[in-house]
């Protein structure tokens, strides 16, 4: 270690503990993976964990898949910096689960491993339906994955306390970031290739339990500092934020009001509405959530697992209120901003402050190291879940059903799934290394918008609309997916957004490049109705008649569970 880093002893000792805990976590998860490898024999094991998880276990895994680093660190960070608006975000994330709850049994009863199983069930021509579903699954997963991986690079550097100008194990901060991205990527590929759904699910369960435990400890500690008086905590946070009363009200981040510019104000507000729609409609179409519906023995267990997930996710998001506001009140907005502009380190910083208050520097280092490892576990588990969903879809739907015409050899298909996870993982690593300095926070919201626009219309129509046919599915998926992607390309996220104060570019492209045509940052408001519309139009203009007997079969199976796998 260099002289500079060694001189900073406070970071040094904390860093050693953090690094040690990270290593311990990696060892535990690798142990799980090796164990799961021995248990994984066929497709049902690899894709669906042998369908042997209980409702409660799968509930933890679902919650673990859902509570990404973006929601743990991200939402706490948004609350810490923008106050109430972080809460708006988490509410969308939670309410969305009700839709998943109503659909979960039907999807569990009809499908085998993937969303495409449900969509193609009663279609006369399966290959195009499968292909479309694979396209949307892989696109959504890769976007989501990219966001997580780029975030992981920055985050782990921060968690280990690597600052620009310093060195870590002889690497500069920039190199350390690349190395972290690659390390996370390699671990993720290893989990999925060897552990399959069994390994990944157990990693999720461990992570969800750690996360809930860590967040509860911190919540109790925060509240105890304010005599368990929420109003007092809010008051302190508002005061420390420097924004006063506005900190506790909606509008600091989303739907900002621009004085003297009603047009701009309206666009900001519509953008917020668009985000809200995407969040609430996206969850039920997220591939890594849907594949998890099939890891339980039956629909009842699937319902139980979603109920557990709702409970866990809900309680967790309520706790992020205490973490976020607590961070503002106890750490201060300025200190959080100084560490990371997007506020991602608010929760770890709060952990250090809380620990120091109880047991001095050692306490601070310990609690910080613990929360940092929880965040690390979160990142690893979520990326693994995403890679698994994408490779399952590629192997089962594209290789097995399209290329092999529905008659693949089981071992062959599983081998393809392992190889696909290697491919997708490597692709994500390469993309993430290139995108490492871009602000990709919008990608998560975009993934939700794409899932809602491309997948939800087809899921709903194939379950409930008798006339829905092949052309409808294909048109709905591609229509929704393409409109979401195109709208984002021509949105201020990609080009033309300039900070009014500093004049710096807030878009992906540098200042001066401006080809934005669509005013909203989140495409959901337009692309979701577009997805539904394309599905309807595709169905109506196609000459193909839906098969009434297959619809009967689908309704009977979906509602009664007869013949379910």
């Amino acid at each position, binding site marked *: 270690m260099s002289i500079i880093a060694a001189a900073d002893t406070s970071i040094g000792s904390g860093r050693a503990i953090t690094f040690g805990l990270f290593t311990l976590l990696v060892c535990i998860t690798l142990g799980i993976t090796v164990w799961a490898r021995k248990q994984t024999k066929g497709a049902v094991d690899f894709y669906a964990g042998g369908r042997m998880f209980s409702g409660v276990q799968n509930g933890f895994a679902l919650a673990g898949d859902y509570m990404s680093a973006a929601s743990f660190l991200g939402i706490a960070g948004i609350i810490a910096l923008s106050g109430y608006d972080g809460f708006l975000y988490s509410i969308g994330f939670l309410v969305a*689960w*009700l839709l998943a709850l109503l659909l979960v049994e039907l999807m569990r009863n009809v499908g085998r491993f993937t969303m495409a199983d449900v969509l193609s069930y009663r279609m006369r021509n399966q290959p195009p339906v499968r292909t479309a579903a694979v396209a949307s699954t892989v696109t959504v997963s890769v976007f989501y994955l990219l966001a997580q991986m780029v975030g992981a690079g920055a985050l782990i550097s921060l968690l280990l306390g690597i600052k620009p100008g310093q060195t870590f194990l002889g690497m500069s901060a920039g190199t350390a970031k690349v190395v972290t991205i690659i390390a996370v990527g390699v671990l993720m590929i290893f989990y999925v290739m060897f552990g399959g759904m069994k390994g990944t699910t157990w990693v999720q369960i461990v992570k969800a339990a750690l996360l809930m435990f860590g967040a509860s400890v911190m919540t109790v500690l925060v509240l105890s500092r304010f005599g368990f008086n929420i109003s007092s905590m809010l008051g302190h946070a508002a005061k420390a934020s420097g924004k006063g009363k506005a900190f506790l009200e909606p509008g600091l981040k989303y739907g900002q009001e621009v004085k003297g510019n009603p047009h701009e104000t309206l666009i900001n507000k519509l953008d917020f509405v668009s985000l809200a729609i995407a969040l609430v409609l996206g969850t039920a179409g997220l591939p890594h959530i849907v594949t998890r519906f099939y890891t339980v023995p039956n629909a009842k267990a699937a319902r139980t697992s979603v109920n557990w997930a709702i409970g866990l996710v809900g309680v967790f998001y309520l706790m992020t209120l205490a973490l976020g506001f607590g961070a503002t009140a106890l750490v201060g907005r300025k200190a959080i901003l100084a560490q990371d502009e997007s506020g991602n380190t608010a929760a770890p910083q709060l952990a250090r402050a809380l620990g120091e208050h109880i047991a001095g520097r050692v306490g601070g280092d310990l609690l910080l190291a613990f929360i940092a490892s929880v965040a690390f576990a979160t990142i690893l588990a979520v990326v693994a879940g995403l890679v698994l969903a994408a490779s399952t879809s590629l192997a089962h739907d594209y290789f097995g059903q399209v290329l092999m015409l529905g008659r693949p050899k089981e071992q062959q298909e599983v081998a393809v799934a392992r190889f696909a996870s290697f491919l997708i993982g490597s692709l994500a690593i390469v993309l993430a290394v290139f995108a490492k300095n871009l602000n990709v926070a919008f990608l998560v919201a975009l993934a939700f918008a794409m899932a809602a626009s491309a997948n939800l219309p087809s899921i709903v129509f194939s379950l409930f609309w008798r006339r829905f046919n092949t052309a409808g599915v294909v048109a709905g998926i591609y229509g929704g997916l393409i409109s979401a992607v195109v709208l984002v390309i021509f949105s201020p996220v990609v080009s033309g957004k300039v900070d009014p104060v500093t004049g710096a570019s807030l878009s992906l492209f540098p200042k001066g490049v401006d080809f934005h045509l669509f005013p909203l940052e989140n495409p959901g408001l337009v692309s979701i109705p577009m997805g539904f519309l394309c599905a309807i139009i595709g169905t109506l203009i196609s000459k193909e008649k839906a098969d009434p007997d297959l619809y009967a079969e689908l309704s009977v199976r979906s509602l009664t569970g007869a013949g379910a796998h």
Partner: protein
Amino acid sequence: MVGGSGPSPRGRATGYDRLRYVAIRQDERFVLLKVKFRRFVLPVVIVFLGWYFLYVMLSAFGRAFMDQRIAGNINVAFVFGVLQFVSTFVFARCFARYARSSLDPLAEAIRIDADRIVSEHVGPPEGRLLPRPRHAGAPAERERAEPPRHELSEPARRPAVEPSRARAVEPSRAPALEGPRNEPRSQPKNEPEPRRLTRYPETGGR
């Protein structure tokens, strides 16, 4: 092998098995189940999405309302947000309870009774009291069959069967509609998905 006991072109259900589902769909208990499901789900979706969008709209456009203080530093927005959490928990709980008390028993009864329902409508399968063999259907049998309606017509014309015969079709022996809960590991499957074949008329099986 068209419309016979071999697997249908998509390998999911033979003509007879397809009939089973059509028969069950016409059963009054299934109709009731469907009505019960929709009667609950539709209003719930409308109410919870409406309630959520009311919150979103007020957060965006009704700020004067949301900013009112209620007690100390707690304002309407905060309470409204927490209420969204509460309502989500309540809806989830209600649905779980409703499903357990009203939907599950009905679905269970239909599954168990499937064979009686089917034999009442179309008569029992001839010589097919045992489950359809998993590997039935050589590739050559996967040719595109006639449209389903044709398949339908043949067994439908079959005369209804005398009661004694119908009773013989007990759920335990009959081709249970319930699929394998846990695919047995001991039984190696070369085709993980023998019943969900893609139909490709021109492939002639490969």
